[in-house]
C-alpha cells in the first residue's frame, strides 16, 4: 500500500485514507494509554493532522479536479473508493478545523463537567465521532457512508450521555437520540438495500451512472424516500428534529460545540450528495421532494424553531432551537435547486459552524464558572465575565446576520439566490425570520448587560484556555464576514462539484 518513500510528501497520495485512519487509530490508543494528558495530546495531534490533510486536499481539488483513492488498491466498484472533490473537501475542512479549536477548549471544560476517570474515554469517543463524521463525508461508497454514520452516531450517544455528571437529563436526551438516530440509520440502510437490489452496486459514482435509466422505477423512488428521511433524522429537518434540543442542551459544553458545528453539517452534505450526485438532479426534482418537502419544511423551521427559541429559559436550548432554524436556511438553499442556492447552503455550512461553535463555547465558559446556562441567572454577567459576554454578543450578531459578520455573507448569498429565481417573497421570508433571531439574541444581551446580578456571588472571568479557543472562532466569524475569498470560492467550487456538469432542468424548482 505504501509504495512511495515514507516522507511527508510521499504520504501525499494517501491523504484521503489518512484523513480517516489517523483519528481512528488515535481513538483506541487514547484508551490503552489511559493517561488523560497524553490522551489529550494524542487527540489534539490527530486533529491537527486532519486539519492539515483536509486543507491540502481542498487546495488540490478546488480547481474542480477529483481525487479518487482506492482502498487496498481494489478498484471500484469492487473495492471501496474515497472520492474527494471540492464539495466534501470543504466539509472536511470545516469538521477538522472546528475539532482542532474545540479540543483544547474541551480539555479545560470537561474538568468540571465529566469525572476524571472518564476523561480518556471521552477523548476516545470524541475521536471516534470525529472519525465517523470525516468518513461519511469523504467516502465514495454508499454503504461506507452508513458504516461511518453509525460510528459517529454511536459515539455521539455516549458523548451526550457524559453530560449526566452535570445534569441527569442528559441520559434521557441520549436515549432519545439513540432511538431516533437508530430509526434514521435504519431508514438509510433500507434505502441503500433497495438501491443495491436494483443496481447491484454500492459505489456512489457507479450508482450515479446506473440510476438515471431506472428513474421511473418504483423501488428506486422508494429508496430515495428512505434515504432522504433517514438522513433527515440525522440532520434534524424540522419535524424530525425532536432529538436535537435536549441532546445539545444536556451534552457537555465541548460536545455541544463540536456537534452543533459539525454533525448536522456532515449530514447535510451527505443529503446533497445523494440528491444531486447519486440520484440525478432531474430525478430529485421530479420526485417533488424539493418543492413539497424540503422547501416548505425549511420555511417552517426558519420560523417555528426561531419562535420556539425565543421562549426558552435555558440559553443552550435557545441556541439549539436556533440551530434547527439555521438548518432551515441550509435546506432552503438546497430547495432553490440552483447553483447559487447550493453555494448559499455550502457557505452557510461554514459560517454557521463557526458562529454557533463560538456561541456554544462562550455559553460553556459561563457554565464552567457558574454551573448554569439558565438565562435569568446570567443577569449582570457582562461586567463579571466581560470577554465571554462580548464573545456572545459578537457571535450573536453573526447569528442575526449583521453586516461585517460571517452570518451576513450567508444571508446575502441566500437572498441573492432568491432574487435570481424571482422569489422576492422568499427574500422577505428570510429577513423576517432572521428578525426573530434579533429577539432571542437581544434577550440574552439585555440579561448580560442591563440586569443587576442576582445575589452577591462574585463570578470570575473564564480561564484563558476557554477564552482563547472561543475568541479564535469569534474572530473567524468576523473575519469571514469581511474576507470571503476562501469561503465563497470554496462554496462555489463545491456547488460545481455537487451539481456536476448536468444542466439543471429549466424551471424544475419553481
Amino acid at each position: 500500500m505504501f509504495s512511495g518513500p515514507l516522507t511527508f510528501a510521499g504520504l501525499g497520495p494517501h491523504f484521503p485514507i489518512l484523513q480517516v485512519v489517523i483519528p481512528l487509530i488515535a481513538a483506541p490508543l487514547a484508551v490503552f494509554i489511559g493517561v488523560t494528558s497524553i490522551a489529550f495530546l494524542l487527540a489534539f495531534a490527530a486533529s491537527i493532522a486532519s486539519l492539515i490533510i483536509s486543507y491540502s486536499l481542498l487546495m488540490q481539488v478546488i480547481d474542480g479536479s477529483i481525487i479518487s483513492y482506492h482502498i487496498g488498491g481494489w478498484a471500484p466498484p469492487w473495492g471501496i473508493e474515497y472520492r474527494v472533490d471540492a464539495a466534501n473537501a470543504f466539509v472536511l475542512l470545516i469538521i477538522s478545523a472546528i475539532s482542532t479549536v474545540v479540543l483544547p477548549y474541551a480539555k479545560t471544560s470537561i474538568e468540571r463537567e465529566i469525572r476524571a476517570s472518564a476523561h480518556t474515554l471521552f477523548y476516545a469517543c470524541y475521536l471516534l465521532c470525529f472519525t465517523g463524521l470525516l468518513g461519511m463525508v469523504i467516502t465514495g461508497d454508499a454503504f461506507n457512508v452508513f458504516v461511518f454514520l453509525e460510528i459517529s452516531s454511536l459515539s455521539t450517544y455516549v458523548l451526550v450521555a457524559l453530560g449526566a455528571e452535570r445534569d441527569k437529563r442528559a441520559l434521557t436526551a441520549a436515549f432519545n437520540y439513540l432511538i431516533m438516530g437508530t430509526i434514521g440509520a435504519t431508514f438509510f440502510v433500507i434505502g441503500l438495500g433497495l438501491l443495491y437490489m436494483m443496481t447491484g452496486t454500492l459505489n456512489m459514482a457507479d450508482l450515479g451512472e446506473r440510476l438515471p435509466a431506472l428513474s421511473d422505477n418504483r423501488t428506486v423512488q422508494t429508496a430515495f424516500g428512505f434515504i432522504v428521511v433517514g438522513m433527515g433524522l440525522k440532520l434534524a429537518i424540522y419535524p424530525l428534529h425532536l432529538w436535537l434540543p435536549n441532546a445539545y442542551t444536556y451534552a457537555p459544553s465541548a460536545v455541544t460545540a463540536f456537534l452543533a458545528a459539525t454533525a448536522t453539517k456532515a449530514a447535510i452534505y451527505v443529503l446533497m450528495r445523494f440528491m444531486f450526485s447519486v440520484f440525478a438532479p432531474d430525478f430529485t426534482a421530479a420526485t417533488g421532494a424539493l418543492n413539497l418537502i424540503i422547501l416548505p419544511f425549511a420555511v417552517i423551521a426558519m420560523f417555528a424553531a426561531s419562535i420556539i427559541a425565543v421562549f426558552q429559559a435555558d440559553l443552550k436550548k435557545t441556541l439549539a432551537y436556533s440551530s434547527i432554524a439555521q438548518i432551515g436556511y441550509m435546506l432552503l438553499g438546497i430547495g432553490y435547486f440552483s447553483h447559487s442556492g447550493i453555494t448559499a447552503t455550502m457557505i452557510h455550512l461554514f459560517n454557521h459552524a463557526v458562529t454557533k461553535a463560538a456561541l456554544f463555547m462562550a455559553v460553556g465558559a459561563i457554565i464552567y464558572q457558574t454551573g448554569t446556562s439558565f438565562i435569568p441567572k446570567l443577569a449582570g454577567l457582562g461586567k463579571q465575565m466581560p470577554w465571554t459576554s462580548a464573545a456572545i454578543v459578537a457571535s450573536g450578531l453573526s447569528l442575526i446576520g449583521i453586516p461585517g459578520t460571517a452570518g451576513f455573507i450567508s444571508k446575502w448569498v441566500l437572498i441573492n439566490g432568491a432574487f435570481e429565481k424571482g422569489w422576492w417573497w422568499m427574500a422577505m421570508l428570510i429577513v423576517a425570520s432572521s428578525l426573530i433571531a434579533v429577539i432571542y439574541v437581544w434577550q440574552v444581551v439585555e440579561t448580560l448587560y442591563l440586569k443587576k446580578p442576582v445575589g452577591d456571588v462574585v463570578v470570575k472571568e473564564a480561564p484563558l484556555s476557554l477564552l482563547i479557543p472561543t475568541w479564535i472562532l469569534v474572530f473567524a466569524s468576523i473575519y469571514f464576514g469581511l474576507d470571503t475569498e476562501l469561503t465563497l470560492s470554496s462554496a462555489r467550487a463545491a456547488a460545481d462539484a455537487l451539481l456536476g456538469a448536468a444542466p439543471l432542468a429549466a424551471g424544475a424548482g419553481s
Partner: protein
Amino acid sequence: MSIELSLILTLLIPLLAAWANMIFRNHENLRDGATFIASILLFGVVVNLLRQHAVSPDISVELLSVMPGLTITLSAEPLGLLFATIASGLWIITHIFGVGYMRGNNEEHHTRFFTSFSLAIFATMGIAFSANMFTLFIFYELLTVSTYPLVAHKQTMDAKKGARTYLGILMGTSIGFLLVAIIWTWHLTGTLDFVKGGILEGKIEGPLVAVLLALYVFGIGKAAIMPFHRWLPAAMVAPTPVSALLHAVAVVKAGVFTMLKVGIYIFGIDFLSTTGASEWLIWLASASILIASLIAMTKDNLKARLAYSTISQLSYITLGMALATSMGALGGGMHIAMHAMGKITLFMCAGSIYVATQKTKVSEMTGLGRVMPFTFIAFFIGALSIIGLPPLGGSWGKWLLIVGAADAGQQVAIAVLMISSLLNVAYLLPIVGKGFFLANPEPKPAAVGSAISPKSKIAEAPLMVVLPPVLTAIGCLLLFFYAGHIQEFLMPIVTSGK
C-alpha cells in the same frame, strides 16, 4: 496629507478615541481629554478633506473586498463632506457639553458612555464617506448597535424598554426592508456604487420602481418617516448629550443622508422624476411632517416635543428627495446642515435646564427664562432657525425646498411646508414666552436651586453645559450668511449628469 490618508484618518481617529476611552477608564480627565483632542483632530481632518476635495474630487480608497464587486470603499463627495463636517464639528461641542452634563448630573458608567459615543462617531464617518451602498449599510448597522448602550444607559425599566423599541425598529426595518432592497438592487445592476445620475435606470420599470423605492424608504428607519418613527421618541430616555448629537444630528441625519444618497445616486433624480415613482412619497412625507408637528404640540416633556419636531423636520428632507427636482435635493442637503445646528441647540438647552433644575416638563419651565437667560436666548434662536425665519440658517433649507416643490409643480407640498412653519411657531415659541414673561409659580426655591431666589438671581447650569448651546446658536446665525457657499458646494451632486 493625501486624500486617501485623510479618508482613513476620519475612521481611525474616532476608533482610537474609543480605544483610548477604554485604556484610560480609571483616569477621568485623561480619558475625556483624549476624546476632546480626537474630536478636534477629526474636525481638522474633515476640513482638510473639504479643501482637498475642491482640488481633486473622485478619489476613493478601497479598504476591503468582501466579495467580487462588493467592496468596503471610502470616497468624499459634497453631500458626505457636508454631513461629516457638521457631525465632526458638533462632536467637539457636544463632547464639552457631554462631559459637563455627565459630571454635573452624576451619571454612572462614564467610560461605557464615551466609548460608545466615539464608536457612534466612527460609524457616522463611515456612513458619510461610504462610496457604495454596501459600505453604507455596514456602518449604518454599526451605528445602530453602537448607540444601543447609550439609549439603554440608565438601565432603568424605561431605558430598557426604550432601547428595545429603538433596536427593534431600527434593526427590524434595516434588515427587513433595506437589506432586501440592497440585494435586489445588486441583483438588478450588479453594482452598488454611488454613481451620479443613478444606477437603476433601464434596469427596472413600471410599478416595481415604486416598490423598490418603498423598500428603501421604509428600510431607512433612521429617517423616521411615519409609521416607523416610534424609535426616536423612545430614544429620548438617553442622557441629553446623546439626544443632542446622535438623535438630532448623527443618527437621524445618517437616515436622511442615506435617503438622499439613494435618491440621487441609486435611483437618480431624473429617473425618479420620469417614472413618478416617488409621487406617493411626497404625500407620505407631507403627512409625516404635519402629524408629527401636531403630536409635538401635545407633548409636555420637552425632549419628547423636540423628538417629534425632529421627526417632522426629517420628513422635510425626505420630501426634498421625493420631489425629484434638483432644487428639492439641494434643499434636502442644505436642510441637513441647518436643522442639525438648530436642533442640537434646542437639545443642549433642554439638557442645560435639566442639569440646573432637574426639570423635564415644559409646564414646569415657566419663569425659568429669567433664571437662565443664556440658555433661553440660545433656545429662542435655535427655535427661530427651526421655524425658518431669517436671519437664521433654517430659512434657507426651507426656501430651497419650497422652490423645489414649485419646480415639481407640487402646490400641496408648498402648503405643507408653510403650515408646518406655523405649527413650529405654535409648539416652540410658547416655551420661550413662558420662560421669560410668566412668573415662576413655585413659591419656594427648588431643592436643587439652593438658596437662590428663582425670581431675580441668575442661576445658570455650569459653564461647560451653557457655553455649547450658545455657540451653536451663534452658528445658526452664521449659517444664514454662509448658505450661499454651501449651496454652491452642493451643486455638483445634482448637475453634470452621469
